[in-house]
């Protein structure tokens, strides 16, 4: 057991998988010699060499196309898209090619690849470097979508993603890179498609993702001291979605709150709300409440960004108003 940062967990996960399997290769901008602009991948070039850990030009389409072509011909590439906002410059490769090609070919080709990316806001980077775009990916059939909230999950879920035979978009949260957590020694492999119940409470379920998980937990702590007991679910995996765990908790509490960093419309919270309102309708004791960033681009100034993203106070307030 050791204290590890979220960013160090990334490098450890990649190293764990590269040691195990020669077909795992890693490419991206500034990831090799420089160890990544978020310093999440130092040491990999030294350990695995320039054939397996490769710096690329600023050519996101070429990066993801290379990952795709390599995956369909026997490798298991991990590609980095530096900031998740940059998925937009290579979205075609992701949604039209990687996501659809197994289906279109009637299963002739496999895409065991991972695209990891720095997602989310809170660092005052402004509208083009702060987006949470996991919902873009969730809306497209053929992509698995993962977003870990802590160092241990980074390792376990990234390892599982690398071993998965399907394409996985792995959303690391930029604001969590410096966060520390306890991580067991030795190999860690988790399971995609599993949510984690972090806390049980009878009054409501709060489902959160990525950097919103610590906020949801903090909110649950405060609510508890005000007499409201919340179940907190770390969704972790948007596709596959662990509906069983989530529906079970909602059936028990009768209330659902989602805490989403993505802008309001058509996020995973909406999907969850729709599933629950269709399938748990009679278990619900009150409206489902989505706590989201408003439907605006993100501002750069700290004071504005802080009121944009769901805060602990906003979660507490929303739950108390609805449940209290």
């Amino acid at each position, binding site marked *: 057991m050791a204290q590890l940062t979220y960013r160090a967990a990334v490098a450890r996960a990649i190293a764990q998988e590269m040691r195990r399997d020669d077909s795992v290769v890693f490419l991206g901008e500034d990831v090799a010699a420089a160890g990544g602009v978020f310093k999440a991948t130092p040491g990999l070039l030294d350990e695995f060499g320039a054939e397996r850990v490769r710096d690329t030009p600023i050519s996101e389409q070429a990066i993801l196309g290379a990952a795709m*072509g*390599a995956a369909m011909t026997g490798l298991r590439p991990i590609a980095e898209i530096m900031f998740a906002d940059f998925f937009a410059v290579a979205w075609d490769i992701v949604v039209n090619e990687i996501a659809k090609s197994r289906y279109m*070919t009637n299963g002739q080709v496999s895409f065991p690849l991972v695209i990891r990316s720095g997602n989310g806001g809170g660092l005052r980077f402004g509208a083009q470097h702060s987006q949470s775009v996991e919902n873009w990916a969730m809306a497209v059939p053929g992509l698995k979508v993962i977003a870990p909230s802590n160092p241990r999950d980074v390792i376990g879920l990234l390892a599982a993603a690398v071993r998965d035979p399907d394409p996985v978009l792995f959303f690391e949260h930029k604001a969590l890179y410096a966060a520390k957590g306890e991580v067991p020694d030795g190999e860690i492999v988790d399971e995609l498609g599993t949510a984690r119940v972090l806390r049980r409470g009878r009054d409501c379920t709060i489902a959160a993702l990525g950097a919103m998980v610590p906020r949801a937990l903090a909110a649950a702590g405060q609510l508890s001291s005000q007499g409201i007991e919340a179940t907190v679910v770390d969704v972790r995996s948007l596709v596959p979605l662990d509906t069983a765990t989530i529906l079970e908790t909602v059936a028990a509490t009768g209330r659902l709150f989602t805490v989403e960093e993505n802008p309001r419309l058509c996020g995973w919270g909406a999907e969850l709300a729709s599933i629950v309102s269709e399938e748990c309708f009679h278990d619900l004791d009150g409206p489902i409440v989505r706590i989201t960033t408003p439907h605006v681009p993100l501002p750069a100034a700290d004071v504005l960004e802080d009121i944009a993203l769901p805060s602990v106070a906003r979660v507490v307030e929303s739950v108390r108003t609805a449940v209290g």
Partner: protein
Amino acid sequence: MTSTVPDLPDIASETRMELYRLQLEMRHFEKRAYDLFMQSLVKGTSHLSLGQEAIAAAFGVAMMPGDWTFATYRGHAHTLARGVPMTAVLAELMGRANGLMGGKGGSMHLTSVEHGVMGSYAIIGAHLTIANGAAWSAQYRRSGQVAVCFFGDGTTNIGAFHEAVNFAAVWKLPVVFVCENNLYMEYTPIAAVTAVDRPAADRAAAYGLEPVVVDGNDADVMYQTAVRAVERARSGAGPSLIEALTYRHGGHSRADPGKYRPAEEIAAWLERDPVPLYRSRLLSLGVPRAELERLEQAVAEAVDLATEEAKAGPPPAPELLMSDVWADGGSSWRN
């Protein structure tokens, strides 16, 4: 256009016969596809290679088993070139269960991994980057495989083209980029939208590559060009970018009668139709007319047979709708 005099050792006569056979097969196949379209047996859309057969045929012969083809929506010929059975391709065009992909992909996405046909891609540009990935895999595994990627003149103006060719050059990937310059994107002349005369060759230097312009309607020239580029890739010398000049006889796709093209232009290119041109070449090289006629007859019959077999296929089973999104064979996004 470079000379049609081959500057490589002469081509073996069996190779020439195979080049002719493939061109014939493509020609008959594409005409049949057109007819079936007119009978509403082929649905959706389809993009024929009529007039451009020499290019796909040449690479089909020059490539080795294990090499990879990356084609476009205009990919029937390139698929057949690797030995994929006509029945499966026709059936795919007709959306039948016996189609190459069970009807799930359609005309624009022909794929047969077994034959090294790693897909046909219908959004301009993407597959150049994907071909790089296969080439990277070959390079990393030292497998000696080569990826060949076909695309059109219009494709040279999209961003992915630029990213892919630079990337291939920097990583010295074993990939061959083949631009089939048929003078038009869909309906717009390439010259109207391109800053240089030769959309691929005039860009080669931007990636440190040699400009290569060849007569895409001469199967011998194409074959020798293909051999050279594939060999270069296999030897580790890196990518090539080839511009093959050619012309499509019909419109861009089913929906297009191709009326935007001057009659003289069409006439001039029909004069240079690769199939009769190659037939004359073979005759002049002494191949007996009867041998050619036997081959022509055999190919025509094979297309007829494939048509009947394809037509006999049932529609795909409804279960296919939900299959093979994932490697476990299913499509479930939740537990």
